């Protein structure tokens, strides 16, 4: 019989990174108008908090959807080590073209984590600051613009 309940495990991680919002498709003036302070040519940074939620059957031997050690090492390798104390547009290939807004960063993190072998990625919620957060559940066709 299938489980009547749907259970997800949520885990939060942190990283600090810099970015600059600038689109090659816009003029200097339009970039300055649209992105304001975020278009500063030297960039600026945030302390990001990334919240991930995974679903799956609870293993009766461990009581867990996935081993936290496996999840932590996967997220650390795919996301934290790749982004922490880095410049997103200079050091993350996806942002050579795409603007490193937190919307796009949220999608990029989802793409990096969706192949976790032990559980199904349900959503990524990314806090850029304690006032701004973004959530992506993979319901977006295709990759980054």
């Amino acid at each position: 019989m299938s489980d009547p309940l749907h259970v997800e495990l949520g885990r939060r991680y942190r990283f600090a990174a810099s970015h600059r919002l600038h689109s090659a498709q816009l003029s200097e003036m339009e970039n300055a108008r649209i992105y304001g302070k975020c278009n500063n040519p030297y960039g600026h940074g945030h302390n990001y908090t990334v919240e991930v939620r995974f679903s799956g059957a609870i293993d009766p031997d461990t009581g867990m959807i996935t081993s936290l050690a496996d999840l932590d090492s996967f997220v650390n390798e795919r996301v934290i080590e790749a982004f922490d104390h880095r410049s997103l547009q200079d050091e993350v290939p996806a942002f050579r073209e795409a603007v490193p807004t937190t919307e796009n960063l949220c999608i990029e993190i989802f793409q990096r984590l969706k192949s976790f072998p032990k559980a199904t990625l349900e959503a990524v919620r990314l806090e850029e600051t304690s006032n701004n957060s973004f959530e992506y559940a993979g319901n977006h066709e295709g990759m980054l613009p």
Partner: protein
Amino acid sequence: MVYLTRKVEFSASHLYHNPALSAEENRRVFGKCNNPHGHGHNYTLEVTIAGEPDPVTGMVLDLKDLKEILEREIMQRMDHRFLNYEVAELKGQIPTCENVARVIWNLLEPEIPQGRLHRVRLYESADLFADCYRNGAKGAEG
């Protein structure tokens, strides 16, 4: 549809140990959580009820009633308790966040008008939580 969420906090101890595994396997699988003396957490429970506001009272559910249900079913059972030994519903289960969230769901569901319990979210710490939904009922609101 409107979603109403009430939060309560409780403190409890637990340990992870599977008697079917050897002592060495238990230590390997559960790490520090296998300490035989147990350890504790400040749990935060968020219970979300879904519904349309009653046309007369304007409420999805009377918060007073929800507060009493949470006090009776959860706080009295789990607050300042050792989950492995003192919560009958967890007997034979490893009291992980996932399993405790499921037990909480099963305790609350019969107390709440049919089909209205939407989500149980249990934080074991600020960085680790489990969500429980009725299968197929997880809405766009997530």
